[in-house]
C-alpha cells in the first residue's frame, strides 16, 4: 500500500504559506481523516506557528529590552551630524 504521508507533510507546510488548490485541500483532508500521525504533524506545525508568532510579539512588547544608552548616544551624534550637514 502506498501512503500519502510524505506528500501530505509538504501540503501541510505549503498550506501555511500559500493557498492550496481545491484538489490539494480535498486530498489532504481525506488523508487526515484516516491518518493519526499526520494529524499530529498538523498539530505540531500549528503549535510551532503560534510559538513563532508569540516569540515575535513577546520581544516587541518586552519593555525591559531597551536601546543601550551608549548606542543611544552614538545615534544621537550621528543624527546631529546629519541634521547639520
Amino acid at each position, binding site marked *: 500500500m502506498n501512503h500519502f504521508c510524505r506528500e501530505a507533510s*509538504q501540503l501541510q507546510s505549503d498550506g501555511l504559506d*500559500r493557498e492550496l488548490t481545491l484538489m490539494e485541500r480535498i486530498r489532504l483532508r481525506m488523508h487526515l481523516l484516516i491518518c493519526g*500521525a*499526520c494529524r499530529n504533524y498538523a498539530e505540531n506545525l500549528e503549535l510551532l506557528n503560534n*510559538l513563532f508568532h508569540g516569540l*515575535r510579539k513577546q*520581544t516587541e512588547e518586552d519593555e525591559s529590552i531597551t*536601546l543601550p544608552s551608549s548606542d543611544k548616544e552614538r545615534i544621537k551624534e550621528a*543624527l546631529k551630524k546629519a541634521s547639520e550637514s
Partner: protein
Amino acid sequence: MNKKAGNPEHWLTDHGDYLYRYAMSRLRNEEQASDMVQETLLAAWRGWDRFSGNSTVRTWLVGIMKHKITDLVRKEIRNRKLAEAVESDPTSSMFNADGSWVEAPRSWKENPEELCESEQFQQVLEGCIGKLPEKQQTVFRMRELTGEESETICKAAEITSTHLHVLIHRARLALRTCLEFNWFGGKRQT
C-alpha cells in the same frame, strides 16, 4: 500630526526603544538591532518631507525599518553566497519508501504561551534552528522569526516560490524532529 515635529532627536527619545525592540524581535542580534535604529532614523530624517501625516510618526518609522531589515538580510544572503546546490533532504530519512512516516509524529501537549516564557525551551529551539543547513536556516529565520512575506524572501534569496516552499517544508520537518527529540520527549532520557 504636526509636520513641524520632524526632530530626529525626539524620535530617538520617543521611539528609540520601541524600534530597537522591533528590530530585536526580528533579528535577535543587539548590534544589528541598534544599527537598524540608527539607519531608520537617518533615513527618516532624509525623507521627512515625504511623511504624509496620515499615519503616526511611529508607524511611519516602523515602515522604514521593515525595509531596512529586509535590505540587511538580503545583503547577508548575498555575502554568504549560499550554495545553490540541493541541500540535504530530510524527507528521505523521515519517510519510508512507501511514503509512510519512519517515526510517526506524536501529539505535543504543551502550551505555546508557556513555551515562549521558558528560557530553557528557547535555547533548545535556537539550537535546533542552528542545526539546519545554511540556506534552509536563512529562509526559515526570515519566514518565522522575521515574519517576512514569501515574496520578499524569494527576492532576497533569489529563489522561486516553489523552491522556497520546499526549503521551508524541509526546515519544518527537521525542526519538528529535533524538538521532539530534545524537548517534547520523543526519546528524551529523564
